[in-house]
């Protein structure tokens, strides 16, 4: 493996993973498409994703853990409040404060995707980790993001139609919900939606953001919710496979894993800061266009020319 995965490849894949894990454009899809597009020895990296046990999977574990740790660090105060909220909620057997509610909401979101992931992750990865299907699902991801934005805009327009006398600033407030007001059943539904991201090309954060927008959150809260919901899933996926990293699969590539993980952490930190900033004013449309263009282009490239 050390002959196959160079430090350049490790750092490039690390940077790619850090960015695409949090951007609504599917990290799994890009981990399939980019090596296939570059070709050469990169294609061998791609081929290892089909195996049930390979050193490359140990490498991916390192990247996931790095991304999750960055998210934990960035939202450390929120997580401290969420954990405290969960413990006080268990003690009092009540869900009253926003932090208590958020804690149970995150649990409700995580369970469906965790269970489905455990049952189907390997099957789906080996069946669909191919350039053509990843390109197709990336295109579908673009359509999903555009549709989400359109439905959200339509819902907002309805509020303006029904309440034309309400000043615009108030309307914005009224049409947006606070993150902590989401119902637990809505969390469960979003959790099932996130399971779609087991298909390479469909973005977990994209699905979560669209679901959040459709449930009335604004873009900033939808993105925040996506990052918070991502942390336990990414961390669990990493910790779940951690023995692979320290076992025989990690032999000979721990240096590359470390280098890739550092790159992934730096990229993830930059990505989360960037997304938090742009979602104060921007929508998902640029990411939808990116998914459509890249997905469509790759579909033509791999569908027609193999």
């Amino acid at each position: 493996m050390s002959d196959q995965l160079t430090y350049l490849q490790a750092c490039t894949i690390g940077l790619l993973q850090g960015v695409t894990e949090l951007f609504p454009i599917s990290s799994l899809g890009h981990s399939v498409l980019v090596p296939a597009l570059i070709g050469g020895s990169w294609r061998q990296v791609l081929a290892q994703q089909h195996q049930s046990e390979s050193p490359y999977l140990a490498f991916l574990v390192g990247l996931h853990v790095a991304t999750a740790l960055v998210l934990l660090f960035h939202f450390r105060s929120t997580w401290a409040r969420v954990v405290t909220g969960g413990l006080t909620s268990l003690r009092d057997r009540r869900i009253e404060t926003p932090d208590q509610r958020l804690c149970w909401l995150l649990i409700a979101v995580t369970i469906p995707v965790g269970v489905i992931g455990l049952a189907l992750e390997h099957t789906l990865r080996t069946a669909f980790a191919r350039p053509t299907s990843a390109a197709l699902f990336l295109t579908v991801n673009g359509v999903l993001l555009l549709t989400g934005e359109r439905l959200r805009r339509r819902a907002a327009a309805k509020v303006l139609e029904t309440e034309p006398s309400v000043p615009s600033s108030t309307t914005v407030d009224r049409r947006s919900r606070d993150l902590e007001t989401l119902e637990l059943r809505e969390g469960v539904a979003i959790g099932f939606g996130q399971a779609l991201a087991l298909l390479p090309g469909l973005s977990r954060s994209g699905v979560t953001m669209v679901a959040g927008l459709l449930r009335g959150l604004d873009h900033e809260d939808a993105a925040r919710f996506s990052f918070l919901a991502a942390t336990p899933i990414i961390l669990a996926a990493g910790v779940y496979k951690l023995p692979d990293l320290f076992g025989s699969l990690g032999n000979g590539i721990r240096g590359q894993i470390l280098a890739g993980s550092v790159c992934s952490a730096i990229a993830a930190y930059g990505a989360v800061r960037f997304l938090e900033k742009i979602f104060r004013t921007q929508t998902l449309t640029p990411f939808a266009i990116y998914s459509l263009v890249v997905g469509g282009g790759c579909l033509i490239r791999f569908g027609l020319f193999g």
Partner: protein
Amino acid sequence: MQTSTKRLVIGGLILLGIACVAVSVLYFSRSADALPAFVPGHEAGVTRHHTKHGLAMLGLAVVCWAGAWMASGTGRPGRAR
């Protein structure tokens, strides 16, 4: 929540938790090829145990029982804001 519905939810969650523990025991005690075909993780010819699947099922059982514990409380789940 009405008392009868509440009891149903609590009972359901407790039973679900027990079922999760039973499945986790299956994962710990049987190799992948000895698991029933409908259980995720069944792989013909694979002799290793799906220990991590078992741990995940135990985690799910804990969540189910935590849910039952919460549902048995006197306080009604209220809106945060």
